[in-house]
């Protein structure tokens, strides 16, 4: 069976696995399983959204944009300020604008502004190096540095106080099969799937998408083909960063505590997810994100039933699993092995 299959089956595998391990699967048991599956799905959607951003940029430039996690953080902050402004916080707008309107305004603005940040970084930090033909690892390091600058820049401007994100959605809870899911969680999942579909379409069907693939295939031939290289790259960063913005917003809706370092950890994990999925491939990032989440949740959930597995070992087990996947499949789940022509 293909590794794709493996990735898709992982969740079901672990659900059935739990059922089998439970001697008498009662009603509660099933509820819990359902709940855990939902938890993983929701956590995965966040990972996947960020991973998609990594993947887009990588797919085009073969650049690991380590600043992405922090652009995501910027996104959350941007969303915060737009939302608070729209709710009349700074007196620029009258208070009492209905929340749905605020949300409707926040989404596009956040994406737009955040993508601005991303494009700016590309322009001032990455492009000069690229033009100088520096080793790509130097661009990677620059990206790392950019991330740190964003974190501490934020810290020194806004101070150490964490921000509490306003709730832009009613506190509505659905109860499918006895499991519970809030509307914010649901929206995160739905958005993630929608974005994935959209990107798939852009990359495979549209001219720009083709151009993006062309750039990643051969950076030097592309200009000769009359494709505006820089334009494509800028578009890529625009797309990737606006995704980070969207992810930041959804994240903030679900986890309404913002601090300058919120992007770091989730960013690293999303990056790992993207690579395990087969970096450069949209499907890879998507599947990888969910795989990561399902692994993490599985360890916690399974710890009661499997000997030697303690919930404390979550990172240990999940990362070991990913390591093994990469050892068996050296180019990730969707990555196609590079055939070197001799």
């Amino acid at each position: 069976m293909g590794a794709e299959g493996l990735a898709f089956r992982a969740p079901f595998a672990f659900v059935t696995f739990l059922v089998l391990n439970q001697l008498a699967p009662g009603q509660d048991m099933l509820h819990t399983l359902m709940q855990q599956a939902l938890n993983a799905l929701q956590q995965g959607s966040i990972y996947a959204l960020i991973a998609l951003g990594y993947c887009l940029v990588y797919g085009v430039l073969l650049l690991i944009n380590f600043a992405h996690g922090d652009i995501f953080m910027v996104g959350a902050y941007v969303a915060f300020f737009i939302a608070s402004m729209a709710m009349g916080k700074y007196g620029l707008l009258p208070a009492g604008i209905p929340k749905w309107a605020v949300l409707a305004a926040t989404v596009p603005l956040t994406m737009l502004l955040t993508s601005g940040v991303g494009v700016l970084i590309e322009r001032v930090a990455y492009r000069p190096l690229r033009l100088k033909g520096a080793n790509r690892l130097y661009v990677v390091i620059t990206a790392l540095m950019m991330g740190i600058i964003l974190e501490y820049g934020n810290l020194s401007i806004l101070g150490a106080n964490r921000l509490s994100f306003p709730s832009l959605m009613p506190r509505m809870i659905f109860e499918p099969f006895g499991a519970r899911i809030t509307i914010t969680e649901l929206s995160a999942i739905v958005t993630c799937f929608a974005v994935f579909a959209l990107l798939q379409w852009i990359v495979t069907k549209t001219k720009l998408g083709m151009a993006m693939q062309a750039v990643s295939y051969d950076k030097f031939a592309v200009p000769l083909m009359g494709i505006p290289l820089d334009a494509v790259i800028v578009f890529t960063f625009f797309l990737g960063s606006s995704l980070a913005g969207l992810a930041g917003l959804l994240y903030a809706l679900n986890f309404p505590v913002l601090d300058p370092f919120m992007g770091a950890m989730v960013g690293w994990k999303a990056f790992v997810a993207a690579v395990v999925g087969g970096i450069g491939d949209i499907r890879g990032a998507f599947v990888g994100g969910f795989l990561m989440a399902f692994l993490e949740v599985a360890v916690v959930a399974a710890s009661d039933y499997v000997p030697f597995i303690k919930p404390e070992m979550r990172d240990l087990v999940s990362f070991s699993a990913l390591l093994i996947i990469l050892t068996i499949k050296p180019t990730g789940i969707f990555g196609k092995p590079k055939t070197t022509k001799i």
Partner: protein
Amino acid sequence: MGTRITVPAALCALLAILVAMTQKDILGQYGVTFLCSMGIYVILSASLNLVNGYMGEFSCGHAGFMAVGAYASSIAGVFLFVPDKVFGHPWLPMSMSIVAFPFILAIGFAAAALAGLVVAIPSFKTRGDYLAVITLAAGYIVKSAIENIEAVGGPRGFMGMSKVVQGMDTIAELPWMLIWIFLSVTFTIWILRRFVYSTYGKGIMAIHQDEIAAEIMSVNTNKMKLIAFMLSSGLAGLAGGLYAYLISFVNPSSFTILRSTECLVMVYLGGMGSLTGSVLSAVAFTIMLEFLKPLEQLKWVVIPLVLILLMQFRPEGIMGNRELSDVFPKLKRFYRFK
């Protein structure tokens, strides 16, 4: 032949001066600790350069190997010299610690080198960014594993190493850690120089520049990768051991991804495939870390900015892949090149 002894002589002189300065209180404990951490950074960046610079892989789990070394040597030391509720009564008298210390460090080296296998073996098949993630995962695994081992205190950390250092003071009141770190730095540079300049070690650069050609031109690539990763992580372990005894306390949170990031930055700042570069950048980096403290938060905006600008102007790092002796050919008169 004079060129043989100039460098050793110079080093001995320098060490003598350092020790003298501490005895005369020109150089206080603070200065000593500062130099020590600088030395540890030098070891870290030089050792990582072997993999990231000379072999051209992107390992970002160096902190993990450092952690293994730190814990291994700490446990060894405590096991031998310190009464501990987990590791029982000391086996040797305090005064022996000075004799045992090299072996304690060696244990750290060995343990970390073994841990290096976790990355080395996948590297046979997995390369590039995928290998990068394997190293990243390895780092997380080590940290998470230590957090789960109660015997070494889990997240509460592990201590008692100070006793071992005090044991040395019973022989003579000298800045022992400074001496050990000085020797270790020398050892690291010495071993790496000799390795990368031998035709044997050049196999690693061959892998970097064209793995297929290397393999077909009779370089046993898997073996070379194994050596590179184990040597690199081993030296990281050495640095870890020294760190543990310098701080006399280890806990998992000092070996996070951030520490690995620092190592990466130093390697690329110095230049891939330049030991001189690694040393330079490590020194520069530690100095920046210490002397920009007054800036508080802004320090971490300034340092990255400086580095980014540096890379804009020198996209190949401070030294590129050149060494001191390439920049000042005259120096070759004073020490043996290659």
